């Protein structure tokens, strides 16, 4: 198998560890995606001059930001200085007010503040140093010994800032971090991608493309899956629902209950259907369609190749025939009124073509001010509000999902009861306003939507809250009517949107949340965890930049993630110590398949779905094993499992037993060229007589079921051959002494052709040589193997 030994793979230039450093530049952009530092990505490889700046080789460049973090902030400033010089501390009214690590971008903000302070001098010496050693009326007295390491580190920092901070042309940290990490090669990646995105194994064409093009072929293949694979749409919905959880409303009339007949007189259109069964079906499909609206809108945007920013800016929504009737839309666009998969764009309330009022005549504009998913009933209803919450939950979720801003983590700071007891603390107390000044303007932008999301236009917002807006920008009152459209446009223009999409899609693809900055410097793993955080933050910020450069193309985003070390890392050279292990903790290309993915994978590999006796799937949403296998229902259960528990182990065993039983004889019933599991061997093949075909099929099964391309000298092959021969020999001896029957048990027999249903000339009922059962054992073993269970 091909593997890369860098932290990156071809085609992922943003990760290529061209390390070097130079001095310069402006760090005013503290919130920028490259840590507030404007780095030229096109700098030549290490050692060469770029813009008059000397570049160093990998590992020798130490950025000022890193120096600050490791030599100044962590050892002493975060404790000795920050104790008073924080927004709530005794020195909160001085020029030096540092930010804690509960504030995003706090390191960059602190560096910027120190650089500004450093300009203040007393008799030619930095005031910061003067104060630190206790001179010039420093309220905190002497904090640093002028002869000590901390003082020297501060001096060095100030010197660096004075000369222009050291900035590595690319990130030496990234290079160092991925040193020795083994990556999946393109073939392995291809299998993982097709299973993950399309629920199937790679096609022959895709294999050939990768064989010819290597990693460069992955991106076009992903684009092809997005454009052509129906199954991808299902996966896309899962990826976004993993964060948005708007599927909560599937079932009953949960979604329809969000609407009123006053707003949508046709919402219960199905009541007119006289046939009970048809009416119930129409009601159920209408409810599902309304619940699915935001995710289907995303699917539409992706399928149409539109920029992903439209998920918050689209001035339209999508509806299938059922939802269109709920909304009272013109359904003439639909060919088949029962096609639940036909989603078309609409503008609710828009004038119908041909019914425009006479020119010059004023009419009320009834056009609904769509703003992508933000204005869908399922999104608004998923995050309801109350008179006292005042849309803050909606604001919190919108900031988190679309602007990568976790207000809740800001709220983790210690809070005193005095702060809460103050009059209107969310507006007046700094302990509260630190979060609320971010959250409350966004909450105001939802002013037109009531507790469960029904549109009720308002002309004003609470006077005891901050005005509607985003960040520093206040929403003009004449925009109130389209407030969420106004908000969506600003979200789309915000650099944080691209990072939010990286985080959301990465989670949907891998099941891993992006790392949060560690907050406990006393933890023994603080250092490596901090390093892991910074590297991931750097890499993902770069991915976000690339995503912007792609025009917010979803396929490009998926390709960027798939080509990153966070998707492909599969091992590391041995002998790593505990600190290195802590540093690498986020890496590892394994994901316990969700029940839906597991369901699809079983079907893709064996050709049969795992169902109960009635033919209903067992692992999909709403089915008996879904939640027990770690499924989410987007209501009471929002996170899947990362680990296999004992019950799941038994679910896997049962599936492996049943599917091996169901698929083995059935596959042998097909012509060899049509078989999925046994194309190289006949059921009658016996060890000692037909070794070549048996061995060829074992190698084939390793590749098909486990994704392992191995040869006959691989110990894994020998294990499987041994298993086959052991079961075969045990079976033969069992039959000989009359302990085992010479026939298959009933559920494992095959009497008809699995495709045509025609009776077989020779039904597969007898198994006199025990070979069918030996193959069943092999298939069962593989379906319960780690490589099959984990994506």
């Amino acid at each position, binding site marked *: 198998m091909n593997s890369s030994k860098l932290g990156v793979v071809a085609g992922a230039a943003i990760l290529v560890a061209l390390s070097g450093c130079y001095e310069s530049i402006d760090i005013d952009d503290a919130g920028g995606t490259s840590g507030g530092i404007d780095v030229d990505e096109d700098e030549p490889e290490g050692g060469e001059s770029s813009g008059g700046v000397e570049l160093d080789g990998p590992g020798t460049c130490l950025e000022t930001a890193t120096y600050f973090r490791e030599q100044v902030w962590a050892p002493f400033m975060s404790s000795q200085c920050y104790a008073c010089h924080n927004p709530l501390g005794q020195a909160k009214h001085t020029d030096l007010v540092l930010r804690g690590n509960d504030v995003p971008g706090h390191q960059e903000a602190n560096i910027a503040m120190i650089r500004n302070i450093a300009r203040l001098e007393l008799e030619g010496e930095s005031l910061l140093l003067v104060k630190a050693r206790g001179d010039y009326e420093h309220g905190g007295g002497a904090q640093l010994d002028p002869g000590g390491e901390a003082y020297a580190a501060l001096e060095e920092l100030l010197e660096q800032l004075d000369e222009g901070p050291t900035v590595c042309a690319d990130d030496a940290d990234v290079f160092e971090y991925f040193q020795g990490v083994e990556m999946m090669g393109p073939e392995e990646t291809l299998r993982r991608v097709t299973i993950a995105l399309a629920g199937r194994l790679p096609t022959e064409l895709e294999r050939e493309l990768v064989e010819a093009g290597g990693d460069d072929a992955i991106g076009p293949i992903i684009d092809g899956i997005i454009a052509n694979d129906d199954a991808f749409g299902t996966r896309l919905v899962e990826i976004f629902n993993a964060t948005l959880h708007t599927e909560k409303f599937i079932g009953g009339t949960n979604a329809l209950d969000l609407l009123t007949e006053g707003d949508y007189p046709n919402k219960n259109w199905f009541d007119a259907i006289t046939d009970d069964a048809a009416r119930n079906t129409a009601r159920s499909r209408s409810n599902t369609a309304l619940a699915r609206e935001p995710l289907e809108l995303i699917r539409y945007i992706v399928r149409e190749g539109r920029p992903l920013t439209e998920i918050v800016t689209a001035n339209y929504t999508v509806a299938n025939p059922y939802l269109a009737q709920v909304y009272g839309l013109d359904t003439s666009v639909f060919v088949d009124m029962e096609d639940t998969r036909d989603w078309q764009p609409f503008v609710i309330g828009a004038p119908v073509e041909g019914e425009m009022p006479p020119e010059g005549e004023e009419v009320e504009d009834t056009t609904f001010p769509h703003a992508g998913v933000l204005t869908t009933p399922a999104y608004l209803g998923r995050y309801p509000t109350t008179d006292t919450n005042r849309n803050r939950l909606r604001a919190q979720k919108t900031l988190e999902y679309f602007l990568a801003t976790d207000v809740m983590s800001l709220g983790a700071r210690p809070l005193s009861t005095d702060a809460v007891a103050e009059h209107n603390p969310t507006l007046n107390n700094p302990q509260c306003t630190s979060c609320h000044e971010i959250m409350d303007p966004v909450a105001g932008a939802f002013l037109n939507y009531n507790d469960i999301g029904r549109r009720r236009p308002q002309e004003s917002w609470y006077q005891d809250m901050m005005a509607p807006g985003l960040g520093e920008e206040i929403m003009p009152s004449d925009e109130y009517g389209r407030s969420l459209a106004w908000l969506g446009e600003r979200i789309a223009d915000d650099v944080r949107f691209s990072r939010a999409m990286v985080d959301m899609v990465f989670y949907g693809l891998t099941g891993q949340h992006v790392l949060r900055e560690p907050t406990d410097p006393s933890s023994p793993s603080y250092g490596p965890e901090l390093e892991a955080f910074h590297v991931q933050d750097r890499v993902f910020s770069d991915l976000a930049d690339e995503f912007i450069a792609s025009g917010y193309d979803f396929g490009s985003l998926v390709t960027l993630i798939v080509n990153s070390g966070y998707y492909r890392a599969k091992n590391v050279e041995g002998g790593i110590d505990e600190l290195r292990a802590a540093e*690498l903790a986020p890496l590892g290309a394994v994901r316990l398949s969700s029940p839906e993915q597991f369901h699809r994978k079983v079907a893709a590999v064996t050709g049969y779905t795992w169902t109960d006796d009635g033919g209903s799937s067992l692992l999909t949403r709403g089915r008996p094993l879904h939640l027990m296998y770690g499924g989410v229902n987007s209501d009471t259960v929002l996170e899947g499992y990362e680990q296999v528990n*004992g019950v799941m*182990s*038994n679910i896997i065993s049962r599936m492996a037993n049943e599917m091996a039983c169901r698929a083995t004889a059935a596959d042998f019933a097909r012509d060899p060229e049509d078989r999925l599991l046994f194309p190289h061997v006949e059921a009658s093949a016996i060890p000692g007589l037909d070794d070549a075909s048996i061995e060829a099929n074992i190698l084939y099964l390793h590749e098909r079921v486990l994704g392992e391309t191995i040869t006959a000298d691989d110990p894994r092959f020998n*294990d*499987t051959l041994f298993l086959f021969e052991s079961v075969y020999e045990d079976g033969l001896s069992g039959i000989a002494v009359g302990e085992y029957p010479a026939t298959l048990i009933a559920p494992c027999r095959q009497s008809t052709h699995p495709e045509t249903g025609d009776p077989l000339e020779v039904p597969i009922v007898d198994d006199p040589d025990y070979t069918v059962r030996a193959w069943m054992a092999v298939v069962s073993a593989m379906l319960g*193997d780690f490589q099959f269970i984990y994506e």
Partner: protein
Amino acid sequence: MKRRNFFSWMAGAGLCAAGIGRGALADLAAGKRVSGGTYDGPFFVHFAADGGWDPTGFCDPHTNLHRGYDESGIVSLGGIRYANVGDNAAFFERFADRLLIVNGLDVTTNNHAVGRRYVSTGKQDETHPHWAALAAGTHGPELPLAYVAEASQSASEGVVARSRVSNSSVLADLSFPDRVNPGNVEDLSTYQTEPALEMVSAWRQSRLDRMAQEQHLPRIDNAIDNLAVARSGSNELELLQSYLPEALAATGIEQQMQVALAAYAAGIAISATFGMNGFDTHQNNDANQDNARASFFGAIMRFWDEAERLGVADRVVMSIGSDFGRTNRYNGNNGKDHWPVTSMMLMGQGIEGNRMVGATDDEQYALRVDPDTLALSEDGVTLTPAHVHAELRKLAGVSDALQARFPLPVEPLPGSILGVA
């Protein structure tokens, strides 16, 4: 023909039989249990009142902070006092002799997620597992239902696999995964013969062992260990069948509790978390808190009913908590907003009951306690969930390795909140 002994045969072929592996399994081998055994207790359980309960409505009464009662509505039962509103009396009368109330816990947050984490893990950030997970991770992570994690905050941080029981009707099928008709006790036929099943198991374990030897990335390494642990105890799920009640609740927390307790009685569970919401009462605080508490306390009482029926009640350790408290005043909707001082309640094996520790003043500010005597003292310490968890961990026998991996910012108070000697 004489049948071969498969395991000796496998050994000759260089394959390993399923058995104790590395990592967590090795820890187990060195600890108090070995794979294949069952667990005798105690059983650790946490009930979460999601949304932020109002202690002034039950365990921390202040007549000036709650409209539902006056002085005559405050009932003393030995060492505890409670507000006699709603259905509180049934709960407190039943449990007063074994109930420990810890008032005046400062969670220093008004944030639901943060408060919920603090109260269930002893730490505010996202790094620590639920204390019930630590207990399960210490005493037997390989058990099939070691950690029944039903509450919304049930973080395990890789210490033990979480389990959820959403549909007990399929447990019989899952208890006997090799049988063709698991629902028919008369039909013991299996898909494969016993030797074949053993060979399959050995093949899987052999591959897992090889992967483990070659793998060095911690995340994948842990996944390999975890699968080995899960497999090692999965056969014991069948023990559950003997303890499930005949009339199993259809869904919801009732069923979750029944299955968890049956699993405990069967020796295949160590801890559980359960949660109910309805406590975020920004509107009509008193009535809504009463309703939510009635459901919540009702569930806890039925938990104990079932524990007593199964004969395991004397081996249960229970903690009960919520995100935070509610404000010391009503808002314009007769609701109460978030307040960073709250209470916890505990009872069960090893906990000295009929006591109240800590307190709040008449403005619901946390009062300090002397760390040695736990008497109120202006020079003392403010109690936090971390203090409670430091002792809960000790009571649960959480291993030194897990304690070191997930340190708490405080040590147990000399005075012992839980009353543990």
